[in-house]
């Protein structure tokens, strides 16, 4: 290998290790469904903080419980796990990721690829922009109001 | 004499999460005296409810007998 190649490979390996170390100690949202009472306070405050009013249809989290035909209790647990799949698939580079997802709204075209690929089905495209959880700058409001501690950030 | 005190509702914190304790009390002790000995100063507890001896509600000043079970409840509202 040439010197340039060695340097390049070394750089790439070190960067990977750094990212994996970061991912290992990085805080993410965690959800315990046995504690969830389906109150949706999470979506309410998420939207209140980001949109300036209580509007859960625009929240960046979607946790609900419902009765399936009255016979069993089901959970919809749409919350961002920082898997990064949206970031990896964004065709315009509007999405960036370190310890949280950030969306550059100038670059976002509302193409919807992120929402399609999101394994937790939590990304919404509203009025041509991607609504993605930003962990409230590392101090998620949803975790603060979750009454029974079903949501944690650790 | 020896009695058992059982706690209900938010009073459990006064026994550090335990729901019951057996304690020694003097003869002719009243429910409120027994609670005080166990560390429960009932007039100072805002949501203190009621007491029952052997599964029957009594007034706080009613007397206990040897081997009695004294239950203390916090208030609960709703229905």
């Amino acid at each position: 290998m040439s010197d340039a190649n060695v340097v390049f490979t070394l750089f790439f390996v070190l960067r990977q290790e750094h990212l994996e170390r970061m991912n290992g100690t990085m805080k993410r949202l965690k959800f315990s469904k046995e504690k969830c009472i389906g109150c949706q306070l999470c979506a309410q405050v998420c939207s209140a903080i980001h949109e300036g009013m209580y509007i859960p249809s625009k929240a960046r989290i979607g946790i609900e419980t419902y009765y399936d035909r009255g016979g069993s209790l089901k959970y919809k647990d749409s919350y961002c796990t920082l898997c990064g799949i949206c970031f990896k698939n964004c065709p315009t580079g509007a999405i960036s990721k370190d310890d949280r997802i950030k969306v550059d709204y100038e670059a976002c075209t509302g193409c919807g690829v992120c929402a399609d690929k999101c394994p937790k089905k939590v990304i919404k495209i509203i009025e041509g922009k991607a609504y993605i959880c930003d962990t409230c700058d590392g101090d998620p409001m949803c975790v603060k109001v979750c009454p029974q501690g079903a949501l944690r950030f650790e | 004499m020896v009695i058992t005190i059982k706690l209900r509702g938010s009073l459990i914190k006064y026994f550090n999460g335990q729901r019951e304790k057996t304690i020694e009390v003097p003869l002719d002790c009243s429910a409120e005296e027994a609670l005080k000995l166990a560390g429960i100063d009932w007039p100072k507890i805002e949501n203190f409810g009621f007491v029952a001896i052997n599964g029957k509600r009594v007034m706080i000043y009613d007397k206990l007998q040897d081997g009695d079970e004294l239950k203390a409840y916090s208030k609960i509202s709703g229905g």
Partner: protein
Amino acid sequence: MLGYQNNILRINLTKKEAKTEPLRMDWAEKYIGSKGLSIKYLYEELKPGIDPLSPENKLIFMTGPLTGTSVPCSGKLAIAGKSPATGTICDCSIGGHSALKIKYAGYDAVILEGKLDKPGYLFIENDKITFEDAAELWGKGSHEAEAMLIDKYGHDYSVISIGPAGETLCTMACINSDYYRQAGRGGMGAVMGSKNLKAVVVNGTGGVKIPNIKEAVKRIAEIEKEDTLQEDNTFVYDGGTTAFLEACQDGGILPKLNFSDTTDEDWTKYNGEVLLESLEGKRGCGSCGLGCGNFLKMGDVVCEGPEYESISVAGPNAGNSDPVAIVKANQVADDMGLDTISAGDTIIWAMEMTEKGIRDFGVRFGEMDKYIEYLKLIARKEGIGAELALGVKKLSEKYGGEDFAMQVKGLEYPQYEPRGSWGMSLAYAVSDRGACHMRAYAPNEEVFAASIPPYTPEGKGEMVFNLAQWNAVKFSLCICDFWGTLNMELMAELMTLATGKEWTAADMAEVGTRVINIARAFNQREGFTAKDDTAPKRLFNEALKNGPGAGQKIPEEAFEDMKQQYYKVLGWDENGMLPESLLATL
């Protein structure tokens, strides 16, 4: 004021028209929302003397300024109308998520007027309102109807429905939502059925604005942690209302065998410990912090519940200690769209009538298979159900047994024995919708209290007034009962945060009193007076045999004295009526 949508959806079912109009903000300033505001609207809009099952009656679904905000326990919906069971005003409070959906759809309230020409359901999605055909749903249980509608529209939608009991205009019919939540008392389901309305399907994607929302959200979160979630309230999450069973057993107010005695030595066979062994999950309403709902599965019996009322009426009060039968009775009542309290009380009265040989209704204490069968017959008004659907007041007027027909004004007794809690006999007598435990919850002050004697009339008028005032304003915000430590100061702070108008604790108390008064004014206009604030003679004539209240019965003079105390506190006359000067302030 913020918090409100300032928008009412008025539906004329006869003409199949939907219109919007501004909220009467001047009324909201006096009555706030939910309970108080819905009663005010009905007081102004209903002519006295109408038939509650006629198209002239109105059914109001009313939210409050806190609905849809992150104030904990603010997700209940008031459902109000003139009651076909009593002829009084009746407001109920239903849980689930429909209150939030209505508010997010952009409405403070939905007012239903007139009558559909054939069975239908109403579809509301933001400003899209359509009148749909319900031929396929009519006749079906509430659970199946809700499942069919959710299959069609999806889980984002909330369904408010009636069961067969509402369709047959049974005056014990309730309104359901989220399968297991009810607007239980007073026959509101029959009002909805009389309008040929099987269901309302609603979703909303709009929002609710409050001032300085980012700071407010933080302050409300603080209140949630420091007050709502303190240990005095979290018994709700731990066991729900099953916690009342032990307290009522020890307190001597758990009724047994149609209120003929109290305390049941078998109570540990069906108590919270036993029931919660079958717990599948916990559930709360929208914006709840406490999650009282216990979702149970016992074999093929599935139910969110049973609540204390339903446990008692199908348990010791029916001479039964089998927990599976209790849960099954709850599941069937919910599906049939029947109030567990009224239907249960009617069946256990029929049990006593049969046992005493006064009239054979074909059912005796402990016969739970029959009890469950009778729930279905009552809902469909078939066989013996056609008679039993009349309720204990009309039945006892026909056949005797009036002394132990436990009801006031035609609404059957909740499950607290008044001889063990004398103030409760007053609370039941003067409640605005007939015998109700949700207006003044007397046991909390007299029985679950260390030093207030339950077996005396002293001070009970003031005690019941204070409790009724507290609940009246609380249910006008609306905040759920289970936030038991909520006081006037906190309510004032929450109202100020949400609306941007300064509210004080004194304002809250004033609203509470005003709501009691306007409900009484409605009833007064319908012809109700002190002689209708009654107690069944069982309380006066028969002494309890067991429990701490053994030997207790309520002297009739003591009962009348408590009534006069209550009227005096409120400034009503000796006939329990508001003077002109007070009526003018409403």
